[in-house]
């Protein structure tokens, strides 16, 4: 009842693990797959091994978390093994990748064998990466285009909410040939320790995730659905089945879950039956609720 085909991938359910969550080792990705996720996305992988920003790299705030991991990753050269292990979980494995410019993205994508690629042009706290390029529609289009030319697997582009108009970056991704967009990455934020005046994160500022950002993400998905022909994958603040339904109604074909996995690693298998029961009661299918908020 919850199964769907998304950019050619068959998913048992529309609930995926978000990038950067339990996504560095093949073993952890496999575990999440076995916990009921419809697909899993890896940690964002770059050109060279990177240790990320100094700690604290995550801090809990009201209704969410700030993080500035700084894209720690073992480089794509050490990552195929992890993907192969992850695939033993029997769900699609999407490789999240990042780079400084188009060639880096396509070099990495070409070298990895994954079921799809998610281009991280939206991490708000890594200089020269992520948001630094994801706010520029031209760069987004170029990078997407380069990766599409380089590989045949589906390409998703993950967008940042930290822009005046997310529709224009979404459209740029679509022009570049993206098979789907993913919205949203974290929202720029910061917390200060009042005992000392010291910014808490090692990187001083970071990205807000969790419940706090759900209304922001819903609005982004809603807006993107209105202008795009390709599917939108929703992410940001999902912590129960109601949230997942809300995203799909806003126009998400599928959703990803990040922060909430920390509190409940079984969240995927908890949400699926509740969604099914709700839809059964309402006599709704996934297709019925998809984009429903645009019709009423």
């Amino acid at each position, binding site marked *: 009842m919850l199964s769907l085909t998304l950019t050619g991938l068959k998913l048992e359910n529309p609930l995926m693990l978000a990038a950067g969550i*339990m996504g560095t080792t093949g073993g*952890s990705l496999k575990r999440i797959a076995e916990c009921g996720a419809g697909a899993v996305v890896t940690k964002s992988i770059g050109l060279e091994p990177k240790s990320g920003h100094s*700690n604290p790299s995550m801090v809990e705030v009201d209704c969410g978390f700030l993080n500035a991991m700084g894209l720690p*990753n073992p480089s794509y050269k050490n990552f195929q093994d992890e993907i192969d292990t992850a695939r033993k979980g029997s769900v699609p494995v999407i490789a999240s990748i990042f780079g400084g410019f188009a060639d880096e993205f396509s070099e990495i994508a070409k070298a990895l064998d994954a079921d799809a690629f998610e281009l991280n042009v939206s991490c708000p706290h890594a200089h020269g990466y992520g948001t630094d390029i994801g706010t520029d529609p031209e760069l987004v289009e170029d990078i997407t285009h380069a990766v599409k030319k380089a590989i045949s697997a589906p390409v998703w582009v993950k967008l940042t909410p930290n822009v005046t108009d997310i529709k224009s970056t979404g459209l740029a991704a679509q022009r570049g040939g993206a098979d789907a967009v993913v919205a949203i990455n974290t929202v720029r934020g910061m917390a200060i320790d009042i005992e000392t005046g010291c910014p808490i994160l090692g990187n001083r500022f970071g990205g807000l995730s969790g419940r706090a950002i759900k209304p922001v993400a819903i609005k982004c998905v809603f807006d993107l659905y209105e202008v795009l022909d390709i599917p939108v994958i929703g992410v940001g603040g999902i912590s129960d089945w109601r949230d997942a339904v809300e995203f799909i109604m806003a126009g998400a074909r599928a959703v990803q879950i990040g922060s909430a996995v920390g509190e409940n*690693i079984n969240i995927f298998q908890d949400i699926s039956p509740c969604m099914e029961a709700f839809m059964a009661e309402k006599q709704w299918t996934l297709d019925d609720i998809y984009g429903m908020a645009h019709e009423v």
Partner: protein
Amino acid sequence: MKPVNVIITKVVDETPTIRTFFFDTSFELIPGRFVMVWIRGVDEIPMALSYENAITVQKVGPATSALFELEECDSFGIRGPYGTGFEIKNGSIMLIAGGVGAAPLAPLAEKISSNGAKITTLLGARTRDELLFRERFESVGELKVATDDGSEGEHGYVTELLEAQENHDQIYCCGPEIMMKKVLDIVEPSRTQLSLHRYIKCGIGICGACCVDGLRVCRDGPVFSGDVLKKTEFGVFRRNECGERVRV
């Protein structure tokens, strides 16, 4: 939670490289659980609670060195405690501590001793002066000692004191991974609980930096049963700060 500010009330030199920092705030002490210690402007690192209001730190690098520069009335940030602690068992108990691994085991010893368990501790260190919390272990049961340099007790690793036929209801262990691996090779893994060390970033089970295969040290651990670890890369591989797999 955001880091709580704690103020140092006392600093105790335990060994030439290890100090205990007592502070003005008490946490619920479930031995084996850890806190994230934020040395402002430097780093945030995991530390076991060695008392309900103290951590016991070995100076090994930049963050621990910065801690060593702090004195009474200075402060640092703490969030936690996090993770799962040791599961308390009764009967005949063995504790195996290597180096600063004694930090979470000393409060555990005191807790299980108050339940009436019979405790034997194997305490190892590089050299005699580095034996941590020997009085705390001695006061609750039998203590056997090993030093790498033979300056006291058995000459060699603490595992030399261990016989395959140990007849204990439970063995608790914390120390260098190599040592813990050896313990698992000698005794029945299902009767052991081991506290692991992995690179911790978020500390709350989200980022995945600390994973041993699919297990999160910060959340599913740091304490695991030996038979669970037997099925993993524990003792063979760990991850560095980039997530690269490296030999232990």
